[in-house]
Protein backbone atom coordinates (compact mmCIF):
# COMPACT_ATOMS: atom_id res chain seq x y z
CA UNK A 1 0.00 0.00 0.00
CA UNK A 2 1.35 3.44 -0.96
CA UNK A 3 1.69 6.26 1.49
CA UNK A 4 2.63 9.59 -0.13
CA UNK A 5 3.77 10.90 3.26
CA UNK A 6 6.13 8.07 3.99
CA UNK A 7 9.50 9.34 5.16
CA UNK A 8 11.07 6.86 2.75
CA UNK A 9 9.63 8.76 -0.25
CA UNK A 10 12.43 10.29 -2.29
CA UNK A 11 12.26 13.97 -3.13
CA UNK A 12 11.06 15.00 -6.57
CA UNK A 13 13.97 16.35 -8.59
CA UNK A 14 14.66 18.18 -11.88
CA UNK A 15 15.78 14.97 -13.64
CA UNK A 16 12.57 13.07 -12.83
CA UNK A 17 10.21 12.47 -15.73
CA UNK A 18 6.74 13.94 -15.24
CA UNK A 19 5.09 10.55 -15.87
CA UNK A 20 7.24 8.96 -13.16
CA UNK A 21 6.40 11.73 -10.69
CA UNK A 22 2.68 11.32 -11.35
CA UNK A 23 3.04 7.55 -11.18
CA UNK A 24 4.47 7.93 -7.69
CA UNK A 25 1.72 10.31 -6.58
CA UNK A 26 -1.24 10.85 -8.89
CA UNK A 27 -2.66 13.44 -6.46
CA UNK A 28 -0.07 15.85 -7.88
CA UNK A 29 -1.85 15.95 -11.25
CA UNK A 30 -4.10 18.96 -10.42
CA UNK A 31 -1.06 20.75 -8.96
CA UNK A 32 0.87 20.18 -12.20
CA UNK A 33 -2.09 21.50 -14.22
CA UNK A 34 -1.98 24.71 -12.17
CA UNK A 35 1.44 25.43 -13.68
CA UNK A 36 -0.01 25.17 -17.18
CA UNK A 37 1.68 21.80 -17.76
CA UNK A 38 -0.41 19.20 -19.56
CA UNK A 39 0.24 15.55 -18.90
CA UNK A 40 1.05 14.80 -22.59
CA UNK A 41 4.61 15.97 -21.89
CA UNK A 42 4.94 13.10 -19.42
CA UNK A 43 8.06 11.63 -21.04
CA UNK A 44 9.99 14.89 -20.51
CA UNK A 45 11.83 15.64 -17.29
CA UNK A 46 10.63 18.44 -15.04
CA UNK A 47 13.78 20.39 -15.90
CA UNK A 48 13.08 20.10 -19.65
CA UNK A 49 9.44 21.11 -19.23
CA UNK A 50 10.35 24.17 -17.17
CA UNK A 51 12.91 25.26 -19.74
CA UNK A 52 10.43 24.82 -22.58
CA UNK A 53 7.52 26.53 -20.82
CA UNK A 54 9.59 29.18 -18.99
CA UNK A 55 8.49 27.95 -15.58
CA UNK A 56 10.66 28.61 -12.51
CA UNK A 57 12.08 25.12 -11.82
CA UNK A 58 12.99 25.75 -8.17
CA UNK A 59 9.50 26.99 -7.42
CA UNK A 60 7.86 24.04 -9.19
CA UNK A 61 10.02 21.58 -7.22
CA UNK A 62 9.29 23.41 -3.95
CA UNK A 63 5.53 23.20 -4.56
CA UNK A 64 5.48 19.57 -5.76
CA UNK A 65 7.60 18.37 -2.84
CA UNK A 66 5.50 20.28 -0.31
CA UNK A 67 2.33 18.60 -1.59
CA UNK A 68 4.10 15.24 -1.98
CA UNK A 69 5.47 14.94 1.53
CA UNK A 70 4.41 16.54 4.80
CA UNK A 71 8.01 16.07 6.03
CA UNK A 72 9.36 18.41 3.35
CA UNK A 73 9.28 22.15 3.52
CA UNK A 74 11.11 24.57 1.19
CA UNK A 75 13.58 27.19 2.30
CA UNK A 76 11.24 29.97 3.42
CA UNK A 77 13.51 32.80 2.29
CA UNK A 78 14.13 31.48 -1.23
CA UNK A 79 10.51 31.23 -2.38
CA UNK A 80 9.51 33.92 -4.87
CA UNK A 81 6.44 35.60 -3.36
CA UNK A 82 5.01 36.77 -6.69
CA UNK A 83 5.12 33.22 -8.05
CA UNK A 84 3.66 31.93 -4.79
CA UNK A 85 0.66 34.28 -4.83
CA UNK A 86 0.03 33.47 -8.52
CA UNK A 87 -0.01 29.78 -7.59
CA UNK A 88 -2.28 30.35 -4.58
CA UNK A 89 -4.74 32.29 -6.77
CA UNK A 90 -4.79 29.40 -9.27
CA UNK A 91 -5.48 27.05 -6.35
CA UNK A 92 -8.42 29.24 -5.34
CA UNK A 93 -9.69 29.05 -8.92
CA UNK A 94 -9.44 25.25 -8.77
CA UNK A 95 -11.51 25.21 -5.57
CA UNK A 96 -14.13 27.51 -7.10
CA UNK A 97 -14.32 25.85 -10.50
CA UNK A 98 -13.67 22.17 -9.72
CA UNK A 99 -13.81 21.03 -6.11
CA UNK A 100 -16.79 23.03 -4.85
CA UNK A 101 -19.01 22.18 -7.88
CA UNK A 102 -17.92 18.51 -7.55
CA UNK A 103 -18.98 18.43 -3.89
CA UNK A 104 -22.26 20.08 -4.87
CA UNK A 105 -23.01 17.47 -7.51
CA UNK A 106 -22.10 14.62 -5.14
CA UNK A 107 -24.53 16.07 -2.60
CA UNK A 108 -27.26 16.16 -5.25
CA UNK A 109 -26.55 12.52 -6.08
CA UNK A 110 -26.69 11.65 -2.40
CA UNK A 111 -30.02 13.48 -2.13
CA UNK A 112 -31.49 11.17 -4.77
CA UNK A 113 -30.06 7.99 -3.26
CA UNK A 114 -30.54 8.65 0.44
CA UNK A 115 -34.07 8.47 1.80
CA UNK A 116 -33.11 10.10 5.13
CA UNK A 117 -34.08 13.65 4.20
CA UNK A 118 -33.15 15.19 7.56
CA UNK A 119 -29.60 13.85 7.39
CA UNK A 120 -29.05 14.99 3.82
CA UNK A 121 -30.64 18.43 4.32
CA UNK A 122 -28.50 19.00 7.43
CA UNK A 123 -25.31 17.88 5.70
CA UNK A 124 -26.11 20.00 2.66
CA UNK A 125 -26.74 23.10 4.79
CA UNK A 126 -23.45 22.55 6.65
CA UNK A 127 -21.57 22.15 3.39
CA UNK A 128 -23.20 25.26 1.88
CA UNK A 129 -22.34 27.31 4.98
CA UNK A 130 -18.79 25.96 4.85
CA UNK A 131 -18.41 26.85 1.16
CA UNK A 132 -19.78 30.32 1.82
CA UNK A 133 -17.22 30.89 4.61
CA UNK A 134 -14.45 29.49 2.40
CA UNK A 135 -15.35 31.85 -0.46
CA UNK A 136 -15.34 34.80 2.00
CA UNK A 137 -11.90 33.66 3.19
CA UNK A 138 -10.60 33.34 -0.38
CA UNK A 139 -11.93 36.80 -1.27
CA UNK A 140 -10.36 38.25 1.88
CA UNK A 141 -6.96 36.83 0.88
CA UNK A 142 -7.23 38.01 -2.71
CA UNK A 143 -8.41 41.49 -1.72
CA UNK A 144 -6.26 42.25 1.32
CA UNK A 145 -3.31 39.84 1.52
CA UNK A 146 -2.01 38.91 -1.94
CA UNK A 147 -1.86 42.55 -3.24
CA UNK A 148 0.63 43.31 -0.43
CA UNK A 149 3.27 41.39 -2.40
CA UNK A 150 2.84 43.81 -5.30
CA UNK A 151 3.04 46.84 -3.02
CA UNK A 152 6.28 45.62 -1.49
CA UNK A 153 7.74 44.75 -4.87
CA UNK A 154 7.16 48.32 -6.06
CA UNK A 155 9.63 49.81 -3.53
CA UNK A 156 8.57 48.76 -0.11
CA UNK A 157 5.84 51.41 0.26
CA UNK A 158 4.42 51.11 3.75
CA UNK A 159 1.02 52.73 3.57
CA UNK A 160 -1.73 51.33 5.79
CA UNK A 161 0.89 49.38 7.72
CA UNK A 162 -1.30 48.87 10.76
CA UNK A 163 -4.32 47.62 8.79
CA UNK A 164 -2.19 45.30 6.67
CA UNK A 165 -0.49 43.74 9.67
CA UNK A 166 -3.84 43.21 11.38
CA UNK A 167 -5.19 41.51 8.25
CA UNK A 168 -2.17 39.22 8.07
CA UNK A 169 -2.68 38.09 11.65
CA UNK A 170 -6.42 37.63 11.10
CA UNK A 171 -5.59 35.09 8.40
CA UNK A 172 -4.23 32.52 10.87
CA UNK A 173 -7.47 32.13 12.80
CA UNK A 174 -9.42 31.74 9.58
CA UNK A 175 -7.19 28.88 8.42
CA UNK A 176 -7.69 27.01 11.63
CA UNK A 177 -11.50 27.24 11.31
CA UNK A 178 -11.49 26.25 7.64
CA UNK A 179 -9.47 23.08 8.32
CA UNK A 180 -11.33 22.10 11.51
CA UNK A 181 -14.79 22.42 9.98
CA UNK A 182 -14.00 20.17 7.03
CA UNK A 183 -12.38 17.61 9.34
CA UNK A 184 -15.51 17.69 11.55
CA UNK A 185 -17.72 17.12 8.51
CA UNK A 186 -15.71 14.01 7.57
CA UNK A 187 -15.98 12.62 11.10
CA UNK A 188 -19.73 13.28 11.34
CA UNK A 189 -20.43 11.67 7.96
CA UNK A 190 -18.37 8.62 9.02
CA UNK A 191 -20.41 8.34 12.22
CA UNK A 192 -23.77 8.61 10.47
CA UNK A 193 -23.58 6.48 7.33
CA UNK A 194 -26.94 4.69 7.39
CA UNK A 195 -27.11 0.93 7.24
CA UNK A 196 -27.62 -0.42 3.72
CA UNK A 197 -26.63 2.97 2.25
CA UNK A 198 -24.94 3.25 -1.15
CA UNK A 199 -21.35 2.95 0.07
CA UNK A 200 -19.90 4.16 -3.25
CA UNK A 201 -21.46 7.63 -3.02
CA UNK A 202 -20.26 8.01 0.57
CA UNK A 203 -16.82 6.86 -0.54
CA UNK A 204 -16.79 9.48 -3.31
CA UNK A 205 -17.87 12.27 -0.95
CA UNK A 206 -15.43 11.28 1.80
CA UNK A 207 -12.59 10.87 -0.68
CA UNK A 208 -13.29 14.31 -2.20
CA UNK A 209 -13.60 15.95 1.23
CA UNK A 210 -10.46 14.26 2.48
CA UNK A 211 -8.49 15.38 -0.58
CA UNK A 212 -9.94 18.88 -0.20
CA UNK A 213 -8.91 18.92 3.48
CA UNK A 214 -5.34 17.95 2.60
CA UNK A 215 -5.20 20.66 -0.06
CA UNK A 216 -6.43 23.24 2.45
CA UNK A 217 -3.76 22.19 4.95
CA UNK A 218 -0.96 22.39 2.37
CA UNK A 219 -2.34 25.69 1.02
CA UNK A 220 -2.38 27.11 4.56
CA UNK A 221 1.20 25.88 5.16
CA UNK A 222 2.38 28.03 2.22
CA UNK A 223 0.53 31.04 3.56
CA UNK A 224 1.15 30.67 7.30
CA UNK A 225 4.77 29.51 7.11
CA UNK A 226 6.06 31.43 4.10
CA UNK A 227 3.85 34.21 2.76
CA UNK A 228 2.69 35.89 5.97
CA UNK A 229 5.98 35.72 7.93
CA UNK A 230 7.86 37.07 4.90
CA UNK A 231 5.35 39.91 4.45
CA UNK A 232 5.44 40.78 8.15
CA UNK A 233 9.21 40.80 8.03
CA UNK A 234 9.24 43.01 4.94
CA UNK A 235 6.77 45.35 6.56
CA UNK A 236 9.15 45.65 9.48
CA UNK A 237 6.58 44.40 11.96
CA UNK A 238 8.06 42.86 15.06
CA UNK A 239 7.31 39.23 14.29
CA UNK A 240 7.27 36.53 16.87
CA UNK A 241 6.64 33.09 15.42
CA UNK A 242 5.14 31.84 18.69
CA UNK A 243 2.43 34.49 18.44
CA UNK A 244 0.68 32.21 15.98
Amino acid sequence: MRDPDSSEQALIEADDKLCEVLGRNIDLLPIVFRFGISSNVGQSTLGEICLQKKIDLDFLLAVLNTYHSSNYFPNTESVNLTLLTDFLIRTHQHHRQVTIPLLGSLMQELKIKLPDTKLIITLEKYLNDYVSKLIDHIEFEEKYIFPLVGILDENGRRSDLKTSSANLKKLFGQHNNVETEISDLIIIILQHIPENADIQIFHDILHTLSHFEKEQIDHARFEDKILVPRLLKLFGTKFRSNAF
Partner: protein
Amino acid sequence: MHSSSCIVIHPWPIVQIGLTNILQSLKIEVTAAYSLCPENKMIIGWNDIVVLIDTREYEFIHKHCKSFRRRNIAIVGIHFDALQTPDNNLFDEILYQSDTQGVLFNKLKAFSNFGKHKQPSLQLSDRETEVLRLVATGFSNKKISDKLFISIHTVISHRKHITSKLGVKSISGLTLYAVINDLID
Protein backbone atom coordinates in the same frame (compact mmCIF):
# COMPACT_ATOMS: atom_id res chain seq x y z
CA MET B 1 -26.89 -16.60 17.65
CA HIS B 2 -23.58 -14.85 17.15
CA SER B 3 -22.87 -12.06 19.59
CA SER B 4 -20.28 -10.00 17.70
CA SER B 5 -18.58 -9.75 14.31
CA CYS B 6 -14.99 -9.67 13.21
CA ILE B 7 -12.78 -9.48 10.14
CA VAL B 8 -9.45 -11.29 9.71
CA ILE B 9 -6.64 -9.78 7.63
CA HIS B 10 -3.65 -12.07 7.21
CA PRO B 11 -1.76 -13.40 4.16
CA TRP B 12 -1.58 -17.01 5.39
CA PRO B 13 -4.68 -19.19 4.79
CA ILE B 14 -3.67 -21.42 7.71
CA VAL B 15 -3.95 -18.44 10.08
CA GLN B 16 -7.26 -17.30 8.56
CA ILE B 17 -8.76 -20.79 8.88
CA GLY B 18 -7.37 -21.41 12.37
CA LEU B 19 -8.58 -18.10 13.78
CA THR B 20 -11.96 -18.46 12.08
CA ASN B 21 -12.47 -21.85 13.77
CA ILE B 22 -11.52 -20.52 17.19
CA LEU B 23 -13.69 -17.42 16.79
CA GLN B 24 -16.69 -19.44 15.65
CA SER B 25 -16.35 -21.73 18.66
CA LEU B 26 -16.57 -18.58 20.78
CA LYS B 27 -19.74 -17.57 18.89
CA ILE B 28 -17.93 -14.68 17.22
CA GLU B 29 -18.94 -14.37 13.58
CA VAL B 30 -16.17 -13.94 11.00
CA THR B 31 -17.79 -11.82 8.30
CA ALA B 32 -14.76 -11.69 5.98
CA ALA B 33 -11.15 -12.83 5.69
CA TYR B 34 -8.64 -10.97 3.52
CA SER B 35 -5.13 -11.92 2.38
CA LEU B 36 -4.35 -8.28 1.51
CA CYS B 37 -5.53 -5.12 3.23
CA PRO B 38 -8.86 -4.06 1.71
CA GLU B 39 -9.23 -0.78 -0.18
CA ASN B 40 -10.63 2.32 1.50
CA LYS B 41 -14.06 1.96 -0.06
CA MET B 42 -14.37 -1.55 1.38
CA ILE B 43 -13.86 -0.36 4.95
CA ILE B 44 -16.16 2.65 4.98
CA GLY B 45 -19.09 0.62 6.29
CA TRP B 46 -17.15 -0.98 9.13
CA ASN B 47 -18.50 -0.08 12.57
CA ASP B 48 -18.64 -1.79 15.99
CA ILE B 49 -16.54 -4.77 14.91
CA VAL B 50 -13.26 -6.48 15.76
CA VAL B 51 -10.45 -6.45 13.17
CA LEU B 52 -7.76 -9.11 13.57
CA ILE B 53 -4.76 -8.06 11.51
CA ASP B 54 -1.17 -9.04 10.83
CA THR B 55 0.98 -6.55 12.80
CA ARG B 56 3.27 -6.23 9.75
CA GLU B 57 0.47 -4.30 8.01
CA TYR B 58 1.86 -1.26 9.78
CA GLU B 59 0.88 1.35 7.16
CA PHE B 60 -2.74 0.23 7.02
CA ILE B 61 -3.04 0.09 10.81
CA HIS B 62 -1.35 3.43 11.32
CA LYS B 63 -3.41 5.08 8.61
CA HIS B 64 -6.76 3.88 9.92
CA CYS B 65 -6.33 3.46 13.68
CA LYS B 66 -7.77 6.89 14.54
CA SER B 67 -10.75 6.38 12.29
CA PHE B 68 -11.25 2.87 13.74
CA ARG B 69 -11.27 4.24 17.30
CA ARG B 70 -13.95 6.74 16.31
CA ARG B 71 -16.05 3.97 14.81
CA ASN B 72 -15.71 1.63 17.79
CA ILE B 73 -13.59 -0.86 15.88
CA ALA B 74 -11.27 -2.96 18.05
CA ILE B 75 -7.86 -3.79 16.55
CA VAL B 76 -6.30 -7.13 17.48
CA GLY B 77 -2.75 -7.67 16.24
CA ILE B 78 -1.55 -11.08 14.98
CA HIS B 79 2.17 -11.02 15.73
CA PHE B 80 4.41 -13.81 14.47
CA ASP B 81 7.63 -11.86 14.10
CA ALA B 82 10.01 -12.69 16.96
CA LEU B 83 12.52 -10.05 15.82
CA GLN B 84 10.13 -7.09 16.07
CA THR B 85 8.13 -5.72 18.99
CA PRO B 86 4.63 -4.55 18.08
CA ASP B 87 3.47 -1.06 19.08
CA ASN B 88 1.09 -1.77 21.97
CA ASN B 89 -0.58 1.63 21.59
CA LEU B 90 -2.02 0.64 18.24
CA PHE B 91 -3.75 -2.53 19.41
CA ASP B 92 -6.50 -3.47 21.84
CA GLU B 93 -4.97 -6.94 22.09
CA ILE B 94 -2.07 -8.81 20.53
CA LEU B 95 -1.97 -12.53 19.69
CA TYR B 96 1.51 -14.05 19.76
CA GLN B 97 2.89 -17.14 18.05
CA SER B 98 3.85 -18.45 21.50
CA ASP B 99 0.34 -18.08 22.97
CA THR B 100 -1.03 -21.37 24.30
CA GLN B 101 -4.50 -22.48 23.24
CA GLY B 102 -5.91 -21.36 26.59
CA VAL B 103 -4.35 -17.90 26.37
CA LEU B 104 -5.56 -17.50 22.81
CA PHE B 105 -9.14 -18.45 23.77
CA ASN B 106 -9.13 -16.07 26.75
CA LYS B 107 -7.80 -13.17 24.71
CA LEU B 108 -10.43 -13.64 21.99
CA LYS B 109 -13.25 -14.42 24.40
CA ALA B 110 -12.92 -10.89 25.77
CA PHE B 111 -14.34 -9.68 22.44
CA SER B 112 -17.33 -12.01 22.35
CA ASN B 113 -19.77 -9.20 23.18
CA PHE B 114 -17.84 -6.45 21.45
CA GLY B 115 -19.87 -3.88 19.57
CA LYS B 116 -23.24 -5.08 20.76
CA HIS B 117 -23.47 -2.29 23.30
CA LYS B 118 -22.10 1.14 22.61
CA GLN B 119 -19.05 1.75 24.76
CA PRO B 120 -19.98 3.98 27.70
CA SER B 121 -16.95 6.18 27.01
CA LEU B 122 -18.45 7.14 23.63
CA GLN B 123 -21.80 8.13 25.10
CA LEU B 124 -22.36 11.65 26.33
CA SER B 125 -23.56 12.04 29.90
CA ASP B 126 -26.84 13.90 30.48
CA ARG B 127 -24.90 16.99 31.54
CA GLU B 128 -22.62 16.84 28.48
CA THR B 129 -25.68 16.44 26.25
CA GLU B 130 -27.21 19.55 27.84
CA VAL B 131 -23.98 21.52 27.33
CA LEU B 132 -23.78 20.32 23.71
CA ARG B 133 -27.38 21.40 23.14
CA LEU B 134 -26.62 24.88 24.49
CA VAL B 135 -23.34 25.20 22.53
CA ALA B 136 -25.19 24.23 19.36
CA THR B 137 -27.89 26.79 20.12
CA GLY B 138 -25.24 29.52 20.23
CA PHE B 139 -24.73 29.95 23.98
CA SER B 140 -21.32 31.21 25.13
CA ASN B 141 -19.45 29.47 27.97
CA LYS B 142 -20.53 32.27 30.32
CA LYS B 143 -24.21 31.94 29.39
CA ILE B 144 -24.05 28.13 29.76
CA SER B 145 -22.42 28.58 33.16
CA ASP B 146 -25.22 30.93 34.27
CA LYS B 147 -28.01 28.77 32.89
CA LEU B 148 -26.80 25.48 34.38
CA PHE B 149 -25.47 27.00 37.65
CA ILE B 150 -21.98 25.59 37.10
CA SER B 151 -18.59 27.31 36.87
CA ILE B 152 -17.05 28.30 33.54
CA HIS B 153 -14.23 25.88 34.35
CA THR B 154 -16.77 23.04 34.52
CA VAL B 155 -18.36 24.15 31.23
CA ILE B 156 -14.92 24.08 29.57
CA SER B 157 -14.27 20.64 31.06
CA HIS B 158 -17.59 19.34 29.68
CA ARG B 159 -16.75 20.79 26.27
CA LYS B 160 -13.37 19.06 26.25
CA HIS B 161 -15.06 15.73 27.04
CA ILE B 162 -17.66 16.28 24.31
CA THR B 163 -14.94 17.03 21.73
CA SER B 164 -12.93 14.03 22.85
CA LYS B 165 -15.89 11.63 22.70
CA LEU B 166 -17.36 12.85 19.41
CA GLY B 167 -14.10 13.76 17.65
CA VAL B 168 -15.76 17.03 16.59
CA LYS B 169 -14.10 20.35 17.46
CA SER B 170 -15.77 23.32 15.76
CA ILE B 171 -19.03 24.91 16.91
CA SER B 172 -20.41 24.38 13.39
CA GLY B 173 -19.52 20.68 13.62
CA LEU B 174 -21.08 20.31 17.07
CA THR B 175 -24.24 22.02 15.81
CA LEU B 176 -24.38 19.64 12.86
CA TYR B 177 -24.00 16.66 15.23
CA ALA B 178 -26.73 18.01 17.51
CA VAL B 179 -29.19 18.53 14.65
CA ILE B 180 -28.60 15.09 13.10
CA ASN B 181 -29.08 13.44 16.49
CA ASP B 182 -32.26 15.40 17.30
CA LEU B 183 -30.71 17.27 20.23
CA ILE B 184 -31.94 20.55 18.73
CA ASP B 185 -34.40 21.42 15.95
